[in-house]
Structures are given as C-alpha cells and as structure tokens.
C-alpha cells in the first residue's frame, strides 16, 4: 500500500491519458480505493476460514445477506455528500417492515397495493425530511432525529414493540430466494436488487443532479451560482435515502421476517459504511461504489468475527476501531492530495470506477 501512495505524482507528469493500471493504482491509494483492497482481503479471509464459501452459490448467498446494509449505504451516500445526515433510515425500515407484515398478511393479492403504499410512505418521509431541512432550515441531523423518533414511536405503538405476522411467502421471495442458473448455480434476488440499485444510483451520480448534489455539499453557494436550487437537490437526496431504506426493508422482510427492531441501528451502520468508503461527512466528496464497498467490508468483517469465534459483544469495538482508522486514513490522504493547488486529475477520467470523483469547483461544468 505504501508503494502506491506515490503514484499520483507519476500521473502528473504523464502528458497523455495514463494507462489503466496506473490509474487503478492511483485510485487505490485514495480512501475510496483502499476500501476495495480491504474488502478483497476480508473476503479472502472469510473464504479461507470457510472454503465452502468459495462455491459461487454460497458466495452469492453471503453477498445477498449484505445487500440490505449496502442499499441503505447507497441511500445514505446521497444525503451525506449533500452535507447532511439521515438518521431516520433505520426507523423507515422498521415502519416499512411492519406495514408489509400487517397489511399483506397471508393474502398475496395485496402485495402490489401495499408496495405502492410503502413507496408513498417513503416519498412522504423523504419530502418531510428534505423540506423541513431546507425550507424550514432545521439542521438535517435534528430533522431526521425527530422523524426517527416519530416513526419508531409509531412503529412500536402499532406493534407494541414485538414481532408481528410474517407476510405471504410470495412477498418474501426477493429477500429469501433466488434464481436457479446453469453456471453459478444460484443467484439470490437480493444480489440482483443490489446490482440494480447500484446501477441506478451510479447513473444518478453521473447525471447533472449527482454532480450538482456533490457540488452543493462542497459549497452550497457555488451550487446556487451554478444555477441549481439547493433545496430541491437536498430534498431529492432525502427522497432517495427513504426509497433506499424501503428497498432494504423489502429485502429484510424477506430475509428475516417481521419485527419492529429490524433496521434499528442501520442509519449508523450506513454512515459508518460510507465513512469507511471515504465519503467525507459535511459533503462534497465521496465515491458511491466505495460506500457500497464500505458496507460490504463492515458486514464481511462481522462474518469473519463470527467465524473466528470472537464474542459478538466485541463487535462495537471493532466497528469503532475501523471507523477511526478509516477516517484517519481518509483525512491523512485527503490532506496530502488536497494541498497542492494544481492537480491534473481530470474531473471524470475514469468512466469505470471513479464516478463522482470530487473535482475542484472551478472545473465543474456550470448549469445543466
């Protein structure tokens, strides 16, 4: 790892587009890149402890159960890069899980209307979070803390704080089962959903919306000058996070069943995942895919702890340590890279891996 740190200096003197390997190496030296190295190392360790997991179907099952956290991290990513927090995501998951359980019951014909209702709930929550934060100028931390209390209170009020009825199996398919395929054997739907969510989110990040969102997180004034209304950008970020939480809830109902405590703590896990992936709190910087990798790192770390036989009580400590280390790495490398006034990293040089790479504000395209 120490060897690759010097790479950016090399790229600077390369007049033409640097070769892919170089660019990859340079990318890996960033906080958003190191997380991939870490992820690969952890997955190798997990498989080493349990060689059966090397089989494609088993491995995909492992990824499948990480999918909800990764999807929540995708939603949180949009809010974080816009410079805010969404603490209500876990509570949104709880509400949606309980809604699904209570309203669908044993009747598969109710699935469609209930899913539409869940989407509507997500839209309302996202709008409330976004509009209260932007138009009423309540800090997002406080807005979403309030909605978190409101939603979790309502969930527990409706259920009395205990497990409810599981919905019809047809509804649980997405989280619980998958496709039988010839070569890899078994493809869990959750993995498919994760890929779809990530593809859509990547597309959004490359759209003017995504670029302006990052810009607004970095500097709202500049974003405003660039012709975007900051309030609508941030409200859309909150909408996306509420929708992501809803998708995660659908997977979790399938995977685990109905319980109001499903989703509790996911907001902090998702923030942790984003931070591990090099997303900077306060907005403006961070790669979407690295946030997803951060979620996978966290989950595979917990799996590894289970395999090694570390008591679950140590989990918070491990999570805390990795947060601090990741954050320290981010800050150290960011300072190193940000100090030189002139950088020749083009804003969008890597169509494959580096979308959303933060560029200096002056290089951002103006307007739409």
């Amino acid at each position: 790892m120490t060897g690759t740190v010097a790479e950016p200096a090399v790229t600077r003197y390369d007049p033409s587009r640097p070769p892919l390997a170089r660019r990859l190496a340079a990318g890996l030296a960033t906080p958003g890149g190191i997380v991939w190295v870490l992820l690969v190392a952890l997955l190798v360790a997990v498989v080493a402890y349990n060689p059966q997991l090397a089989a494609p179907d088993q491995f995909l099952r492992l990824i499948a159960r990480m999918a909800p956290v990764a999807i929540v991290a995708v939603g949180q990513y949009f809010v974080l890069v816009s410079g805010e927090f969404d603490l209500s995501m876990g509570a949104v998951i709880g509400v949606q899980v309980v809604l699904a359980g209570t309203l669908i019951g044993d009747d598969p014909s109710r699935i469609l209307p209930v899913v539409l209702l869940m989407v509507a709930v997500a839209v309302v929550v996202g709008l409330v979070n976004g509009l209260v934060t932007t138009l009423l100028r309540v800090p997002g931390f406080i807005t979403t803390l309030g909605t978190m209390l409101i939603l979790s209170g309502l969930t527990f009020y409706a259920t009395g704080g205990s497990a409810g009825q599981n919905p019809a199996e047809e509804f649980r398919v997405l989280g619980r089962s998958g496709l039988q395929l010839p070569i890899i054997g078994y493809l869990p739907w959750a993995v498919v959903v994760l890929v779809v969510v990530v593809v859509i989110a990547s597309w959004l990040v490359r759209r003017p919306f995504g670029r302006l969102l990052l810009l607004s997180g970095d500097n709202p004034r500049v974003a405003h000058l660039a012709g975007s209304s900051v309030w609508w950008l941030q409200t859309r970020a909150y909408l996306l996070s509420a929708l992501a939480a809803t998708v995660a809830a659908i997977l979790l109902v399938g995977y685990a069943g109905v319980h109001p405590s499903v989703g509790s703590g996911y907001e902090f896990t998702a923030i942790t995942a984003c931070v591990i992936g090099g997303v900077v709190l306060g907005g403006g910087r961070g790669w979407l895919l690295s946030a997803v990798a951060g979620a996978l790192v966290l989950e595979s770390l917990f799996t590894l702890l289970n395999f090694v036989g570390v008591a679950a009580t140590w989990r918070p400590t491990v999570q805390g340590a990795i947060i601090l280390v990741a954050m320290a790495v981010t800050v150290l490398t960011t300072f190193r890279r940000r100090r030189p006034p002139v950088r020749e990293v083009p804003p969008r040089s890597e169509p494959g891996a580096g979308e959303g790479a933060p560029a200096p504000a002056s290089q951002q395209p103006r307007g739409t």
Partner: protein
Amino acid sequence: MQRRTSRLALVGAGVFALALTACAPGANAGGGSESEPSAEANPWFDQAQFDLENERRGAQFEGDPAKPYLQYLAGDMVAAADYALDRPGKVCFANASLSNTWRQTGWITMNQQLQVLQEQGVVQQMETRDAQDSDDTQVADIDYFVNEGDCDGFIISPYSPDATTAAVERACETGKPVIVFDRAVSTDCVTSFVHSIGGMAWGIDVGEFIADQLEPGDKVVALRTAAGVDVFESRWAASQKIFDDAGIEYVDYLTGADPAEIKKAVTDEIAKGEIDAVWVDLGDQSVPAIEAFEDAGVDVPIVNGEDNMAYLRAWKERDLNGFGGVYSNFQWRTALLALTQLWQGQDIPKDWVVPQTPITSAELDAVLRVNDEMPDVHSTSFGGEDLPGFPDAWRDRIIP
C-alpha cells in the same frame, strides 16, 4: 503549517495505533471463547438456586389446577389484616416495559382482570407508568407513585433487580402493600413476590430436553436476547450447566431480538459445521433460526422455543423436534389478584410461586387447538380463558 499538521496527524495516528494494540490482548482474552467457558464461571450461575428450582419443577402446588394463576407452593403467608381496604382501591403499577410479546400478552390479561375487579368494585382505578426498559426511568416512576400517586398499593415489575431495589424500599416505607412480579428485587421488604418457578427451571427444562437427545461432543448454538437481565441470564446459566454435565459443546451469541441478526449468526454457524441443536431464550428467535436452516438447504435440527404461537405453529407445520419452554404468562394476572386479595382480607403467600409447565410434543396439538384463533405473537400460558373478554381481547390484541 502544512508540515506541522501532517506531523501532528502522524503522531495522533501513532498514539491511536498504540491504543489499539493495548486493547488487543484484552480482545483476545475476552473473545477466544464465545463466552464463559463453563456454567461454573458464569456469574449468573447459582447452584443453590439451581437445586431449588429443579426441586420445584416436580413439586405439588396448592389450589385448584384449573386455575393455575391462583396456585401456589406451601410456605409463609402474609396476613391480610394489615392491608384490608373497605373501599375500591387505587393500584399503582410501575412496569418495566411492553417490549416483547410475552409482556404484551400479560398486559392484555392484566387489563381484562382489571375490568372484572373494577366491575366488582374492588379496584377504583389502576395508574400505570412504563419505564421503557430503563432503570433510571423506573426509579423515577416509583418515586412519582410514592410522592404523588395517592396509591393504595403498588405493583412493580422491575427492569433489573439491583437497580430498582432502593426505590422499591421507598415504596415499602409507605406501609402500603407492594407486590413485585416477574423479575426479582434484592430486598425482602416487599409484601409478596409473585413469579413462576423461575428462569433456572426454564433452563433445566429446555437444557434436559436437548441434552437427552445429544451425544457428548455434539454442538449447540445458543441465541441469547440480552445480557444482564436475570430472567434470561438464569435460563442460559441453567442450560449451560446441563450441557457442561453432558459434555455437549456450545457457542453462544448475543443477538438481541432482531431476526436478521439471528439469521446471520445461525447461517455463519451452519457454514462452520454441523449443528445438533439451537437453543433460544426467547420464542421470537426460533422462527428466524429455523428459516436459516431451510434457506441453507440443511435439515432443521432440534430448535426449542417458548409458548408463543409463531413457534408452536412452525413446530406443527414443519413437524420439528421441538420443545416450548414456559415462563408462565398468567403471573401478570396473579400480581393484580395478589394485591386485591389483600385488600379483600385474604391472606396470600409471601413468596407466591405459580406453576410453570413446558409444552412437549404430547401437548402441542391440544395447546394449538385451544389457541387456534390467536395471533402469532400470543403466549399460550396467558391464563385468561375464564375472563369475560376471552377470546376477543387476545385475538384482536389491542394493546391497552
């Protein structure tokens, strides 16, 4: 300036790395085995209590077996003369929480019993404060009742035994009857302590069911809800003792009640190797554990549960090798009756032990038949079949 910053940062990182390495030996010491190596090392294991509850499992209870909520073990009685009341009384109930299905079912039963007592003119009203699983809140709740409640008697369902003791003693000082039920407190000032045989008896029932069918060296995965809560800790301590004596291997997880965490833990254990039984201390955990085996395409081993309908239905539908540990839910009703019996001049036991009878495969069909209409979250030991609100109040499950 820039160099200074990065040097400071490096120093900081170094200090932090040192701090981490300093933590590491502790981490290894605590994490090498999943928890205490044996029941003897578990601070919650108490041989005398284990023997007492083991003996009570086979004891003969006084009273009408058709009304188990009024049965008790022979022992010291409380003279009602000191507490008799010639008017409808006010009950003050400091509740730990309603945060699991068992507590909710009991709460519904208690309220149904309350309605009967109000119609009989024994109880004027019951004021309830809910501590939401917080010791500090519960102490404040009890103090509120003592100062402000205008109470004719207290019912306290404590959150954790030691932390509420001082407040319970303040309630005792009022001279009004104080009934504690479910979890214990560390003081003997209370008028009566209502509970079923206990967590150890629960642990012995479940532990023996599992141990009887396994060989030495077989492996049990234990899923535990909460650390430091005596009713749960004592269940595990007793089962752990039985597994130790039978030479059975076990790993234990603290999963909380979140089914996703439970499923992940079980899935990881399935990946590690064969599992011969899953032990849970809360019935809510059984179904996610069962599903983990199904999703992995592995035969479901022994999985115990409690008397909650979700587990009993899963047991029946999947024809499992199951066992329902019971911590009698009807004690919620008993607690209220204990107080009102004192008001009405009836002596009650000082240590009121109600029976607790686990559900075996022999009783499964009968239990399911009686509770056929009930929701998945219902506890079948609710003991309210003879109350006027039956079955609607429990079937509709509107939390009062």
